[in-house]
């Protein structure tokens, strides 16, 4: 596995770990470890769920899907481009939603959950690493010499 893919994999595992913890504490608030009490407010706010599904669980599923796609990309060469596209789609959509959640924390809930912010930061770094890694995919093939 290439170095950047390993970095992506590690970041996705970290993201899945934090999201998994947040999913667990969503149902077991007593297990929440948080400095300042903001996590509790965020975790019990109405924005912590979408149609009854915890947002943290969605984050966990997203990171797990990214992990699976990174593995697929490394193991099954013919599906690599599909896996790449899948990873970017997941990351872009989740970044939009993470941005929205951060906006809610700052302007609506008025409380900060460090774990949620950490997850957003991991997602942003993961996106940047993947974008950097993918630049090779879109290198102009015209730099290949033409022949008579």
């Amino acid at each position, binding site marked *: 596995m290439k170095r950047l893919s390993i970095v992506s994999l590690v970041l996705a595992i970290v993201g899945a770990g934090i999201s998994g913890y947040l999913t667990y504490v969503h149902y077991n608030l007593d297990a929440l470890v948080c400095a300042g009490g903001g996590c509790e407010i965020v975790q019990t*706010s109405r924005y912590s769920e979408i149609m009854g599904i915890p947002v943290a669980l969605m984050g966990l599923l997203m990171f797990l899907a990214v992990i699976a796609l990174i593995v697929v990309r490394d193991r099954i060469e013919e599906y690599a481009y599909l896996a790449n596209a899948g990873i970017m789609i997941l990351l872009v959509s989740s970044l*939009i939603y993470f941005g929205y959640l951060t906006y809610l924390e700052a302007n609506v809930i008025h409380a900060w959950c460090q774990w949620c912010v950490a997850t957003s930061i991991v997602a942003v770094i993961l996106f940047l690493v993947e974008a950097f890694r993918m630049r090779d995919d879109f290198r102009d093939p015209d730099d290949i010499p033409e*022949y008579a």
Partner: protein
Amino acid sequence: MSQRPPKKNRSGKNASRKKNRSQQPRARAQQQATGTPVTGSTSATSTASTTAKNAGSTSGARPSDRRQARREAAIKKEQQKKQLRLIIGGIAAAVVVAVVLILVNRPSNDGSNIDYGDLAMAPPPIAAAGATPDASPEAGESTSYQGAFLGDPNAPVTFTIYADYQCHFCKQFHEDSYPQIIDDFVRDGQVRIEFREFPALGEGDITSDGNESAQAAEAAICAGEQDKYLEYHDKLYANFGGVNQGTFSNDRLKKFAEELGLDTDAFNECLDSGRYQSAVVQSRDEGRALGISATPMFIIDNGNGEPNVVQQTSSGYDLLRRQIQTAVETAP
């Protein structure tokens, strides 16, 4: 200069993998020639590019290698287009999904989604009496604070809620248990809910303008003057924003009234006058005397002379439902 030995592969497998890769362009070229569709892959196309470059840079490259390199470049271009289309299309779809999720979960300015239907509502009597000096508890006849009511006045059980609008467990109760109590007990006339103020978390003196808990409670009673206590009450919870964060500053409280379509002049005058400060203090002090020590806490009274003071527990609605059910079943 001594010649370095070739770098040893970490796993020992790379050599064979590289060998396999070097064979791929030829296989792809063959596939292309026979019209077989070629599935794209990043590393394969990189290899193609490398092959092409090698073919170009080597002055002695054979014409067949050059043709192969051109084919590989064309394949790579096609794959790039395919991958780009896939990513752009997918991201567009993902953006739509993300926007839909945001719309579903957007902040509501209209308060809660509780359907009060045709349930009987009554503002706090002090507010219903109008903003006259006589309506204040000091000057009035009533010696006991009464809050707003929801439900049948003849219901056998009264469920009194003592809450602070800045308390997030109160908000949690408001979102989780409260609508269920309405559905399970209030709609069929078994329970009537009374809302009492218990400002506990605000900073500073309870009568100061900077005490957001007390100001929010006063604002709700002011809205009661216009028969909008419950709407305002729901809006306060919908705009919950932590404790003492300025969420319930006077300016914001006035803005909520405006958003609810209240007569803002009357509401602002009411809030600025502080005429319900003493009512809020009275509500809190009476609650304390009855054993209210935290928020949210409730008094379930079925008229048997022994009101049950209960607290919201981590078990959520289930325990509360059983306690209310018992009160309903044992009502005299």
